[in-house]
C-alpha cells in the first residue's frame, strides 16, 4: 500500500518505512546486513580482486581470490563469433550491429506501417545475410555451420520471429474460422505441437526430417531447425492472439459487417490492431522466452553463444574459469532480454495513452 507523506524528508521516510518498531528494525538490520555482505562479496570478487588482462593468466589461475575476467579478454572473440573464420569476424560483428539496429528501429513508431516495416526488415535482413554468408561483393562464402556465437543467436531469434509471427496470425485466423472443420483441424494441430517439448521438435526437424523429405526439400540443418522452432513459436503465439481477439466485443465485427466491410478489412483494421494491443504483455513474454530458448540449439550441435562460451573455457589454459564465462554470457542475455521487456513496458504505456 502506498503511503503519503506530508513532509517528504528522506530520514523521516526511512524511519517510517524501515525502523518504525522493534520488529521492523530487527528485520531491516538482518536483511540489510545480508544484502550488504552479498554485495560486498560480489564487488570484491567481480571488481576489486578481479584479474582483467589476459597476460595475467597465471595470477588468476593460482588464486587472486577474485574473478578471472582475463578469460574474456583472451577469448571474447570466440564467445561472440564462435567458429566464424578469424579474419572475417568483422563481418559477423557488423551483422550483429545491423540486426540490433533493425530491431531498434522497428521499435520507433515511424516505422509502424506495413510498407515501412517490411522494407526495413527486408533490407536489414538482406545486409545481415550477405555479410554473414558472403559469396557476393567479393566476400568469401562462410557456410551456416561455421556461424556461431552472438550473431547465430540473433539470427535464429530474428528469423524465428519473422517467420513465426505471420504464421501465428494465419493460425489464429484459421482457428477462429466459422467452418468447424477448419477451426477444429487447426485446433488439433496447435494443441499437438504445444504438447510436444521444443527440444523434441528441434530434434525431429534436424535429424529425422532428412530421411522423410525428398532431397531437394531438405536444405541446411539450420533452416530446418529454424522452421521447426518458428512452427512452435507460431502455435503459442496463435493462442495468445486468439485470446486477444476473443477479448473484443463481438459487436465491433458485426457492426463492420453491417457497414459492408470485407473480411480482410475487418481483420486488418478492426480485429488485429486491437488483438495485438490486448495481447501485448504475453506477446512480449513470448519473445523473451523465444530469445532465451534459442540456447536449446546447442543440443543439435550449433555453436550459439552458450556453446561458444563452453568452448571458451574448454582448454587447458582456461579450464578453471567457467563461472566468469557463464557470467559474461548471462550478461549478454540480460542486456537483450532486459531491453526487450523495457520496450514492452514502454509499448504498454503508449497504448494505454491511446485508450484513455
Amino acid at each position, binding site marked *: 500500500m502506498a503511503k503519503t507523506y506530508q513532509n517528504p524528508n528522506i530520514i523521516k521516510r526511512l524511519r517510517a518505512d524501515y525502523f518504525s518498531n522493534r520488529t521492523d528494525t530487527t528485520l531491516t538490520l538482518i536483511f540489510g546486513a545480508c544484502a550488504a555482505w552479498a554485495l560486498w562479496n560480489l564487488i570484491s570478487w567481480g571488481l576489486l580482486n578481479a584479474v582483467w588482462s589476459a597476460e595475467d593468466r597465471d595470477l588468476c589461475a593460482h588464486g587472486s581470490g577474485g574473478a578471472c575476467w582475463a578469460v574474456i579478454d583472451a577469448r571474447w572473440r570466440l564467445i561472440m563469433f564462435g567458429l566464424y573464420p578469424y579474419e572475417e569476424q568483422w563481418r559477423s560483428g557488423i551483422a550483429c550491429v545491423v540486426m540490433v539496429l533493425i530491431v531498434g528501429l522497428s521499435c520507433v513508431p515511424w516505422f509502424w506501417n506495413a510498407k515501412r516495416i517490411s522494407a526495413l526488415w527486408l533490407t536489414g535482413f538482406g545486409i545481415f545475410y550477405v555479410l554473414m554468408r558472403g559469396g557476393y561483393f567479393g566476400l568469401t562464402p562462410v557456410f551456416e555451420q561455421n556461424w556461431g556465437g552472438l550473431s547465430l543467436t540473433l539470427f535464429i531469434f530474428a528469423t524465428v520471429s519473422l517467420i513465426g509471427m505471420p504464421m501465428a496470425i494465419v493460425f489464429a485466423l484459421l482457428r477462429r474460422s466459422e467452418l468447424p472443420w477448419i477451426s477444429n483441424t487447426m485446433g488439433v494441430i496447435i494443441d499437438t505441437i504445444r504438447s510436444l517439448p521444443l527440444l523434441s521438435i528441434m530434434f525431429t526437424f534436424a535429424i529425422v526430417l532428412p530421411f522423410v523429405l525428398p532431397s531437394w526439400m531438405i536444405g541446411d540443418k539450420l533452416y530446418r531447425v529454424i522452421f521447426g522452432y518458428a512452427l512452435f513459436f507460431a502455435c503459442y503465439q496463435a493462442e495468445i492472439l486468439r485470446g486477444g481477439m476473443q477479448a473484443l466485443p463481438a459487436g465491433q465485427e458485426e457492426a463492420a459487417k453491417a457497414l459492408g466491410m470485407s473480411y480482410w478489412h475487418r481483420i486488418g483494421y478492426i480485429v488485429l490492431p486491437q488483438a495485438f494491443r490486448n495481447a501485448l504483455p504475453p506477446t512480449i513474454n513470448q519473445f523473451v522466452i523465444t530469445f532465451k530458448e534459442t540456447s536449446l540449439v546447442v543440443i543439435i550441435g550449433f555453436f550459439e553463444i552458450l556453446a561458444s562460451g563452453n*568452448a571458451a573455457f574448454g*582448454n587447458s589454459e582456461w579450464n578453471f574459469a567457467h563461472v566468469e564465462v557463464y557470467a559474461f554470457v548471462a550478461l549478454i542475455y540480460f542486456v537483450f532480454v532486459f531491453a526487450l521487456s523495457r520496450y514492452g513496458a514502454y509499448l504498454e504505456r503508449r497504448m494505454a495513452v491511446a485508450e484513455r
Partner: protein
Amino acid sequence: MKYLKYAVAAVGLAAGVAQADGRLETVTERGKLLCSGHNGSFLGFAEVDDKGNWKGMDIDLCKGLAASVFGESDGHLEIVPISWAQRWPALQSGDLDVVIKLSGWTQSRDTELNLAFSNPYFVGAFHVMAHAELGAESVADLDGGSICVSAGTSTERVLAAYLEKQKIDAEVLVFEKADEVRAAYFSQRCDGLILFAPPLAATRATSDAPEAHVILPDVLGLEPEAIVVPEGDPKWLDVQNWMLSSLWFAEINGITQANVDEIRANPPSAQVGKFLGTTPGYGERLGLSDDWAYNLIKEVGNYGEIFDRNIAEPYALPRGMNELYTNGGVFYPLTVD
C-alpha cells in the same frame, strides 16, 4: 533414451538401403571430409583456440584422415560441430562421414545401432582423485569417506561396480553436471572425485594447487575408444584401421613429422619404403594414393606425437596403457606386407 536408440537404428537401416555407393567414393567425389567436432569443447580431444580453429586429439585424427584421402587436410576437411546425442543420427544421415569423438565401443552401439567400430585408438581409464592431505594411496583408503560422481554417465556405473566388488563402503554423491561435480570436490564436499582419466588430469593440472590433489592408481574401469563409421562399408572401415595402424607403425619405426622426408628419401628397409610410398602397393589396395601414409605423417605426425601434443603436454597425463606394446602399452601396428 530407449526410444531414441530404436529410432536411430531404424533410420540406420533406411540409410543403409539408400547408400549403395561406398563412403570413400562419396568423400573423394565431394572433395571434402565431414568429420565430427563438438558443441563446445572436450578437453584434450576437441578444443577451440583463440582464433576459432579446432585442435585436439580427435581433431588431429580427422586431419590425418583427410590428409590420407586427399594428400593434405587444408581445404579438404570440414569439422562439423555436433553434440553427443546427435553423432549417430548425423553419421547415418550423411551429415558426417566418420565419427571421431571419443566414442566407446559398446555392444548395443555395435549391434542395435548399425555402427562399425575401428580398432580402438585410445583406452580411457576411470580414476579417482583425492585430496592429498587425506594421505590416501588407493581407493580402498577412502573407505568411510565420500566420492563425487556425475549422474547418468557410465562413470556412475563403473564406480558402483568397483565399490561393490572391493567391498569399499564410501558414500557416493551424485551431481548433474561436470562443472558441479568439480566444484563440489574442490569445495571439500567429498574426499574423492571420479572422472575419465583425461579430464581428471586436466582438472588437477588447472586447479589452484595441483600438488594438493593425488590421482589414485586404481583403474576402476576401462573404455576402449574407437573411430565409428556406418555398418556395411568395409572399405571405409579399412581406411580407418590402416590409418590408425600407420600412426603406430610410424612411431615404432621412429618416423616423425620432422624426419619423414629424410626417411622417405633413404628408407632403412623395403617395408618402410613401401609404407611411405617409394614402392607401390600400400595405398592402392585401400583405394588411396600410394604415398598416403607419408601425407598422413607429414600432416599430424605419428601416434606418440599426436598424444604428446594434445594430451600429455597440456594436461600432464602419462601415456600409461596408451603406449605401444614395446613400452608396456596395448597398441601395435598391423603388418605391412
